[in-house]
């Protein structure tokens, strides 16, 4: 399968690979997917007191498109408020990376990861 240049770029030079302290109060962690399905994304965000995403890190087990999708969303999330980040849609990710139909589920997973990370942060804050 031919990958788009953007997928190859993110795959070759993934942005923001790594981990944040999952126990910290200002960090939200989203882990979505399953090894049996061939994709697992872990997306983490560090949120400032005024609700802006200061930092984002990811690690992904999956195909090139899954790695590129998660790398891309870490770039997009940084500097956004939580509400702005929640507006990122899988269709935007798929369009930016020119994902073929068979790889759309990678962008869906990335959107799910954003939601899961934000929800985890919010749950921690409400405690």
């Amino acid at each position, binding site marked *: 399968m031919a*990958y788009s240049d953007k997928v190859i770029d993110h795959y070759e030079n993934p942005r923001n690979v790594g981990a944040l302290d999952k126990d910290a109060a200002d960090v939200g962690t989203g882990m979505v997917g399953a090894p049996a399905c061939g994709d697992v994304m872990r997306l983490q965000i560090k949120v400032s007191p005024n609700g802006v995403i200061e930092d984002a890190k990811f*690690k992904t*087990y999956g195909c090139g498109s899954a790695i590129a999708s998660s790398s891309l969303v870490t770039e997009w999330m940084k500097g956004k408020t939580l509400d702005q980040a929640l507006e990122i849609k899988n269709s935007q990710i798929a369009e930016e990376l020119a994902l073929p139909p068979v790889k759309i589920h990678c962008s869906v997973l990335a959107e799910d990861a954003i939601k899961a990370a934000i929800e985890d942060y919010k749950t921690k804050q409400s405690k």
Partner: protein
Amino acid sequence: MSKPIYLDYAATTPVDPRVAEKMCSFLTLDSGHFGNPASRSHSFGWEAEQAVEEARKQVAALVNCDPKEIVWTSGATESDNLAVKGVAEFYAKKGKHIITSKTEHKAVLDTCRHLERFGYEITYLQPELDGMIDLAKLEAAMRPDTILVSIMHVNNEIGVIQDIAAIGELTRSRGILFHVDAAQSAGKVPIDLDKLKVDLMSFSAHKCYGPKGIGALYVRRKPRVRLEAQMHGGGHERGMRSGTLPTHQIVGMGEAFRIAREEMAQENERIRMLRDRLLKGVQNIEEVYVNGDMERRVPHNLNISFNYVEGESLMMALRDLAVSSGSACTSASLEPSYVLRAIGRPDELAHSSLRFSIGRYTTEQDIDRAVELIHQKISKLRELSPLWDMYKEGIDLSSVQWSAH
């Protein structure tokens, strides 16, 4: 950009230059050998026929059968179709039960599925964890109305060699016909059809340094095996497969099988040495699993799962190597390999597998470069893998509640 290192000989092989040269002499007017082998009225036809019969002898010689038992087809897929459908239709009055295995090639599995729509009953045997068919389970599946057992000789993904001699004993004593898909074994494993109780055997030229688009089906004469033809027309190949014989293709297959017969033993040793070098080179990576039995296996195949790394991203990383992913992610389906699943590999290991297949033109340098690349890329992808992190933290991945999607 230099070409990738070819380690996908189980998918197809390059044509041996000796084969290509011979084929070329059967195409043009100048070569004089372009005739239709079925033309009986002039020397062009006679010469072509002679070449076809010579090739038939060469194919028969590799597997020790009578040349009259070889029927030319377009490849192993057609041979499988002809064998399974041909027997099913001819012997339908005797019974409508067929036994095969879950790790067969799709050419057999899909043909069986097709027959199910016409009232045939198929038993799909589950192989053991090492990929082998349990003979006791096979025997238990046999019924009075069983007409055919179809089991491949060598599996295309994991390279394990089934005990077709023992299976033949079980089928022959019960009057059940036995078909063997030998696409992956001819030229790699010695085959003696005089001794084996095999009734039908499928061959392919392009897995054995011959051209694509040509294959053969062995159809036993003693005891006689009957088939309903699947391709009707001029009654070629004793009515079993009509269609003008492609002389150049046939000559190519004959030459490829002649070379295989003469060089197989020596070549196998060299290839086994390279395969073991590859295995030794990657075995020191953590969490690496070989799929399929290592003893009862063809020398050119190595199927490995690199745990916590997804196969398609690994292939992308290893684009300087031409290998195939056990997981079928590159095709439209996102299912992991049905063969690895059938031998009980967990889905995540099936998703992490690569098949390396080595051949006539693989060098030691190729293998060393492959080992170096695999080490590099596995560690890069594990750096990226949340599963690797969890494994390193000592988390049991099977205890995690995953959100399946």
